[in-house]
């Protein structure tokens, strides 16, 4: 019998074990291929070539995937070999040299690997198309970019080459495992503990301190500090997570063991001891999964939040569906004509008279840059005018009430320190003065000027009478702004084009919600798509790793269940034992990953969302959106848990009679 026939025979005889192996390996190939196909996709290429930030993000995603695939395959390969210890040791006993056994296993890996490669790439071609369609049609319906996946020969070749290299590395690593075996150990393999992990209180506390301090840093409300602290936060949290799983969790299990009332409840006794027995072999996997889950959950939540807020963000930016000001000729009739020919109803139209004022003030410097000086004019509104303007808008700014002698200050950009600089500032007019009592960020009411003031109605009247508030002039006409809201503004492309055509060159400036919305859709939609896509891949990859590990463990734990049934464990108890044995393995990394992500979202909120989402407490709203994605994540994990549970149960119940 030569090696090839022996290898083929082995594959046939071990097909049950090989099915799981092929499953996890096929999944890795699928992942890598899909990622490469995504990278090769023309649209993605075009969109990202111009922005090095996105290229960076994608490349680092690629590196994480590759490292993880390598880690995943080598670890599953090694546990696969361990599961076949008896068989291998029999070869050894009959005088086969380690090298020959290594060759045999390598041959098997190559045979199965090549087949799997074909399956994986095939699945990749099929699913990347399916996944893209699914994401674009169901989740990102408003996304206008064109991401179509085609069969990509480049990605296929690269995937194949990559995996042939990985198979060789697996072969070497298998050889190492075989050389590490002692014949004697091989025959009593099942009985040797994988090494007990006692854990220590010091490590537990240290890991909690590390994670907590990372969290505290991440929760700081100052975006400059958070951006600078990003790397330290990552180091603190990741090292804390690994320490927790290496030394902390075993200690927690130890503490549970000490509580006899809980521990001596039959089911707990079996499952806690079984989990703590496996701790060493699974601690690194759990920690890695927790970290990856955090990354994936954050990516998915960020993408979804950006995407979901695109509409809100658009209106907080522009306020109306159509805004224009400074017309050079009379436009009213022409505009109405455009709406009429398109059969679109105008919901509301307002013409706002724009006024300005030029008070005396000290110069304000913010971060060594001039923010305000005596020459700057302010756009100015009475509180009544302002309130009616924002009432008409789709913005969710609140109406204001201002006491005499005070003023609100509105600035279109978010800037560090603006509040400190502007609050309490005195603006002097000829006979009076107002003091700024509040700073708002909005670019709705400025209409061409950076600084905007809202005054008490009576103060405003007085200044109009003393001719200090004057109507703005432009192109020889009194400046007015026309703000319009109309039906189905974000979806009517034809109307938008015609409106833009009618306005071009005839006004000082115009903006439409449609254009703004679609611009942000294009950027956010793509970020969101890639976030979803990569998270999906991460979720499936981590969950299937857990599945694989547990099913492999089931093979080794089978005799324990057999013994337990002998001493009278009922079926119901057995199901509880299996549940308690598996649940922590799935649940703990997921929970820790999500908690990490909640804090990561806080950081993202401080840096990005608080400027984007115009509500009082943007973090709460971010958490709301994130929760949807966390739930989706948990559901996928739950499905994997159920699959694993039934498979595990089936395996340990086998041979029961």
């Amino acid at each position, binding site marked *: 019998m030569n090696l090839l026939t022996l290898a083929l025979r082995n594959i046939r005889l071990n097909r049950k074990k090989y099915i799981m192996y092929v499953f996890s390996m096929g999944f890795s190939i699928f992942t890598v291929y899909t990622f490469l196909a995504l990278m090769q996709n023309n649209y993605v290429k075009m969109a990202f070539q111009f922005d090095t930030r996105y290229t960076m993000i994608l490349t680092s995603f690629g590196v994480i995937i590759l490292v993880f695939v390598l880690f995943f395959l080598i670890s599953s390969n090694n546990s696969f070999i361990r599961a076949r210890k008896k068989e291998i040791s029999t070869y050894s006993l009959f005088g086969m040299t380690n090298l020959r056994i290594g060759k045999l296993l390598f041959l098997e890996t190559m045979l199965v690997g090549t087949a799997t490669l074909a399956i994986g790439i095939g699945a990749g071609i099929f699913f990347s198309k399916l996944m893209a369609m699914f994401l674009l049609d169901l989740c990102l319906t408003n996304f206008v970019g064109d991401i179509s996946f085609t069969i990509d020969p480049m990605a296929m070749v690269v995937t194949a080459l990559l995996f042939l290299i990985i198979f060789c590395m697996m072969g070497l690593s298998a050889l190492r495992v075989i050389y590490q075996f002692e014949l004697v150990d091989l025959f009593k393999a099942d009985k040797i503990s994988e090494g007990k992990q006692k854990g220590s209180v010091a490590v537990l506390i240290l890991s909690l301190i590390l994670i907590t301090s990372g969290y505290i840093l991440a929760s700081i409300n100052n975006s400059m500090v958070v951006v600078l602290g990003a790397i330290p936060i990552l180091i603190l949290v990741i090292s804390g997570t690994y320490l927790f799983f290496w030394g902390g969790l075993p200690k927690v299990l130890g503490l549970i063991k000490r509580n006899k009332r809980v521990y001596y409840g039959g089911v707990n006794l079996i499952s806690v*001891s079984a989990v703590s*027995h496996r701790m060493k072999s699974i601690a690194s996997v759990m920690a890695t999964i927790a970290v990856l889950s955090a990354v994936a959950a954050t990516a998915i939540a960020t993408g979804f939040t950006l995407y979901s807020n695109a509409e809100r963000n658009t209106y907080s930016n522009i306020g109306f569906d159509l805004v224009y000001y400074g017309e050079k000729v009379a436009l009213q009739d022409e505009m109405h004509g455009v709406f009429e020919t398109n059969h679109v109803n105008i919901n509301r139209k307002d013409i706002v008279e724009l006024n300005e004022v030029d008070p005396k003030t000290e110069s304000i410097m913010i971060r060594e840059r001039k923010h305000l000086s005596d020459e700057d004019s302010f756009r100015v509104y009475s509180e009544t005018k302002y309130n009616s303007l924002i009432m008409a808008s789709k913005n969710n700014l609140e109406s204001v009430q201002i006491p005499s002698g005070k003023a609100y200050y509105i600035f279109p950009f978010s800037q560090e320190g603006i509040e400190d600089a502007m609050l309490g500032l005195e603006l002097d007019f000829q006979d009076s003065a107002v003091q700024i009592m509040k700073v708002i960020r909005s670019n709705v009411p400025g209409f061409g000027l950076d600084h905007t003031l809202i005054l008490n109605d009576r103060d405003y009247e007085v200044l109009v009478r003393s001719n200090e508030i004057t109507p703005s002039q432009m192109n020889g006409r009194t400046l007015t702004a026309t703000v319009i809201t109309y039906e189905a503004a974000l979806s009517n492309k034809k109307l938008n084009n015609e409106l833009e055509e009618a306005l071009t060159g005839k006004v000082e400036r115009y903006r439409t919600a449609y254009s703004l919305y679609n611009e942000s859709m294009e950027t956010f939609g793509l970020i969101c798509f890639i976030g979803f896509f990569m998270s999906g891949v991460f979720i499936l990859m981590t969950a299937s790793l857990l599945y694989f590990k547990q099913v492999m463990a089931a093979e080794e734990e089978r005799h324990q269940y057999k013994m337990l049934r002998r001493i009278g464990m009922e079926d119901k108890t057995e199901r509880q034992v299996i549940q308690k044995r598996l649940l922590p393995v799935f649940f703990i990394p997921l929970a820790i990953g999500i908690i990490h992500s909640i804090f990561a979202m806080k950081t993202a909120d401080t840096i990005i969302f608080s400027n984007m989402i115009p509500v009082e407490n943007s973090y709460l709203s971010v958490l709301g959106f994130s929760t949807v994605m966390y739930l989706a994540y948990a559901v996928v994990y739950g499905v994997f848990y159920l699959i694993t549970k039934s498979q595990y149960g089936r395996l340990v119940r086998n041979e029961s009679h």
Partner: protein
Amino acid sequence: MQILKVENVSKIYGTKRNSNKYTALRNISFEVNQGDFIGVMGASGSGKTTLLNILGSLDKPTTGNYIMNGQNIGDLQRNQLAKHRMENIGFIFQDYNLLETMTLKENIILPLSLMGMDAKTIEAKLAKLAGDLGIVPVIDKYPYEVSGGEQQRAAACRALINNPKMILADEPTGNLDSKSGKDLLNLLSFINTEYKTTILMVTHDVFAASYCQKILFIRDGEIYNELYAGSDKKHFFDSIIDVMSMLGGERK
């Protein structure tokens, strides 16, 4: 007091259609009284382990009744069987069958904690039994950290902890050296006299069998002979050897 009655028990392996039938047990009948220490002997393949599996309700007889405490065990459902095993029977196996993931102590209290007993009662029961069986010094170790004799004593301890009506021992000394084997047999005798526990032990070791009060010899699935221990241990030992040599089994 009679605690176990076996009536015409047969066990046939292989399906009805399959002509490859194999009869492991043929019309076996016997009775066991409270406090008996019974040995079951026979050559390899004679059906003694099958008998033990049926008595332990791990396996069901093809025909015949097996009555314990006035209840026909064959009528019980799967989960009732589990309960029956937990409450009435203690097992000691040749390869100990301790859970590797647990310390000896945890292994021993396992049946009680599966029954849902509270921690205090468990500790109290354990303390007495562990003291009697002499495993206190190693009780917090894991099975792979202690000797075979100690593992088997822990297994005996686990079998006893829920005060079973009957202990079934399948070649308990099979994996032990002669010193540990002797210790274990003394322990079983001690259990038998001190706790009045009924013991049924399958063995092919004549020396082990000589500790019993009564021996059933099985050949080709049938009871071939019975021997009772008299006052003379030497004589009993010789008689066992005689029967065994007639059976064509191992000699010692």
